[in-house]
């Protein structure tokens, strides 16, 4: 670890690794500087200009793009900063259709956080407001909706697709007032190279990218994704007995805050109406529902006749460690055979 750099922010002495931006150093030390386009998982670009600070001996500068220096003296609030930030915030808000109450990002929106902190003049906004787009909503993807009237052009989605997913299927398109985020040829997202990982959806600071039918869970539980062998840590949300959401555990070692399309959007199989809910026993050629007692007693009685090498278990790589331990113990200790295998070879 290299030697830490000491600087002063609003009179408080803080330390940070060389190369850290003033913004991230301040946030890590509990000092809030308003910001929108900066995201801890991505490179900083300095697009939104609301994270301005004053540094002794310099002109106001964006704190997300300025690395910490030894002995730096930083001020995060002053009359001049407030004024400039307000104008910069206005330039973001005039792009944004703020229909907050019907937005699923309501109360989790970074733009709301900024407006609360910086303040807005409704009259000025009205005068500058950008005309709404003709067809702002792209609902071609089965899992998420893009509403370009809510987009504030922070570019987090563009950087996410490029830096995290590595596909770069979206970018800034057009110029000036017409600038928007689009895929090649400004087509619906479903016709692009998008692989629906949802990484951009999970990072969009406003309501421009939201999961379709987003439902706020009543509670969340940290667990592991059931699909492939990556073993991604995920936080699964439920309402009542139904799974309604899933997001990556931010610092989980295997996936480091990412998920793919299956883990993020593919859990509805759990509550599918076709789930088996009762044991079934074949009677007169048909599988009919039975009680657990009947099923267990039938199996116990039948398997008692097949002990030894005429019996085999196919165990499951979908089940837990504990399930598999019991399966092989049962096969070996009760059924007296080593005929047990699972799909590892397939």
């Amino acid at each position: 670890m290299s030697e830490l750099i000491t600087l002063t922010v609003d009179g408080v002495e803080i330390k940070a690794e060389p190369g850290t931006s003033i913004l991230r150093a301040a946030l890590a030390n509990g000092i809030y500087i308003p910001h929108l386009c900066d995201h801890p998982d991505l490179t900083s670009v300095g697009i939104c200009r609301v994270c301005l600070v004053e540094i002794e001996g310099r002109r106001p500068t964006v704190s997300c793009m300025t690395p910490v220096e030894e002995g730096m003296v930083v001020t995060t609030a002053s009359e001049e900063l407030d004024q400039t930030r307000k104008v910069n915030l206005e330039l973001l808000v005039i792009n944004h259709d703020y229909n907050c109450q019907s937005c699923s990002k309501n109360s989790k929106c970074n733009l709301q956080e900024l407006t609360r902190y910086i303040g807005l003049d409704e009259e000025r906004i009205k005068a500058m407001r950008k005309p709404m787009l003709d067809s702002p909503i792209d609902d071609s993807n089965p899992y998420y909706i893009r509403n370009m009237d809510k987009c504030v052009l922070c570019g987090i989605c563009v950087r996410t697709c490029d830096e995290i997913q590595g596909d770069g299927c979206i970018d800034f398109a057009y110029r000036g007032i017409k600038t928007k985020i689009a895929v090649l040829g400004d087509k619906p997202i479903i016709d692009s190279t998008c692989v629906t990982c949802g990484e951009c959806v999970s990072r969009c600071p406003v309501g421009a990218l939201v999961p379709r039918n987003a439902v706020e869970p009543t509670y969340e539980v940290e667990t592991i994704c059931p699909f492939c062998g990556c073993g991604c840590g995920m936080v699964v949300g439920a309402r009542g007995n139904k799974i309604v959401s899933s997001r990556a555990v931010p610092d989980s070692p295997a996936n480091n805050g990412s998920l793919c399309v299956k883990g993020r959007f593919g859990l509805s199989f759990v509550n599918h109406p076709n789930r088996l809910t009762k044991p079934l026993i074949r009677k007169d050629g048909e599988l009919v529902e039975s009680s657990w007692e009947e099923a267990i007693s039938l199996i116990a009685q039948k398997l008692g006749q097949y002990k030894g090498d005429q019996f085999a278990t196919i165990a499951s790589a979908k089940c837990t460690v504990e399930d598999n331990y019991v399966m092989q113990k049962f096969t070996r200790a009760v059924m007296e055979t080593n005929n047990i295998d699972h799909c590892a070879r397939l």
Partner: protein
Amino acid sequence: MAGLAIALGSGAMTNTIAEIGDSACILASGTSTTEAHPIIGYQVKKAVRKGAKLIVANPQEVPLTQFADLHLPLKPGTDVALLMGMAKVIIDEGLHDQKYIEERCENFDKFKESLEVYTPEFVSDVTGLPWEDVVKAARMYAENGPASILYCMGITQHSHGTDNVLAVSNLALITGNLGRISGGVNPLRGQNNVQGACDMGSLPNVFTGYQKVDNDEARQKFEKAWGVSLSGKPGLTHTEIFDAAYTGEIKALYLIGENPVLTEANAAHSIEAMDKLEFFVVQDIFLNETAEKADVVLPAVSFAEKNGTFVNTERRVQRVRRVIDPVGEAKPDWWIVSAIANEMGHEGFAYNSAEEIFNEMASLTPSYAGINYERLDQGSIQWPCPSVDHPGTPILHTEKFATASGKAKLLPLEYRPSEDCCDFDFPLILTTERSLYQFHSTMTRYSDGLDGLSGGEQILINPADAEKLGIEDGDQVEVKSRRGKLKVKATITRRSQPGVASLSFHFAECPTNLLTSNALDPVAKTPETKVCAIRIDKVEQ
């Protein structure tokens, strides 16, 4: 896995997922990483962004190839020739790590001798690759360290899968890439807990932690712990179990969470085998195509309704926590199996929680001895973890290998062609692939939206082959092998090389494994689903 166990003493991913992003070279062999292991795909792409060289050895132009410095579209089933050819180049050009080989490997001279046959002409002829590309790949891999090898079913699902794996480990050994951060040999495991199921001894030859059933000491330990006498005769493997059911030697089968009607190679054979069983119990979360054949079907809970642990592909033991109540009367798998054992009058199955089971297992399993739920609540642990104060093991083989001598074994290998060869009647090779949007055969078919994204089943055919066969994009075709046939939509694409076509195996309405071959690797007993001779005919409307 058997291959790595022979050479290194332990069959598992040697390094962690996060390290891949810092590799200087990645050789991705027989893995469509961005589709089958998307999160590991992120790491590969991250490494490439940072300047790492990426070599993709895959018959198909899988999506990962767009990030590659070098794509080696070898003929399916010729990996041994390619990898041994690369080893020859490395040694001939003096790019090997002599010191590492002397200190940590055995059998180098014999190995070196065995490379003589892998001449440029031979390797090019077998693999269909220009020799310059083999040389380029060898130099790229040997000169950019640390270099990580990723492999998957494209390496193992062959009648010579074990040889393929040994060829991979040879390459990593001669370049000193084992036991090194961001290096290693990394088999990417397909299922959420396939590593855990192996670790738990859901295998015919080992108890938990790979303690062999035919080792008297190990067996006696389990006999004492479980209070029973145990068989020291290794059991049958997956494919052999279905063969034995077919011949009537296996009369009763308890099948949990699997759908062999779709996933078993040469599926028609296993379907017939299942029909012959006298007693067939299936335990699953859905009434899938296999469950419909059972005598008794037991409803299990899904991952979201149970407590326990999964072990991921990098040997990381992680806690699974119950999110919702069980659906209907579904029960945890361990509860059901224990209930049957209790009903049969056996002691030792009176478990009340997953944690109790884990603790019993850990007490019998040296590589898990230091792991418990309390520790797992603080964070995941990578085995081996022999004691409660041990932090776990992110990188295997850093000081010595898990073999008897502590040294890794370099193994001479002979190229053997695949069993299912092409001829006049079956002129094309079929290989199988995965879709990002599907997972095996059951769960994702019940998830809204994924089916639509995956676009359904289609056979990928090269334009040159399509022209010869008079097939146009979107045509219905009949695909026939020596074992079965099916109808499917054709997609004409250069992703498939001439002479090779590919299908996935996710769809009940198009059961690919009716076609595939169940020729087995002699050691690992993995069926040869990646190479299957077929013919394709247009279906006249």
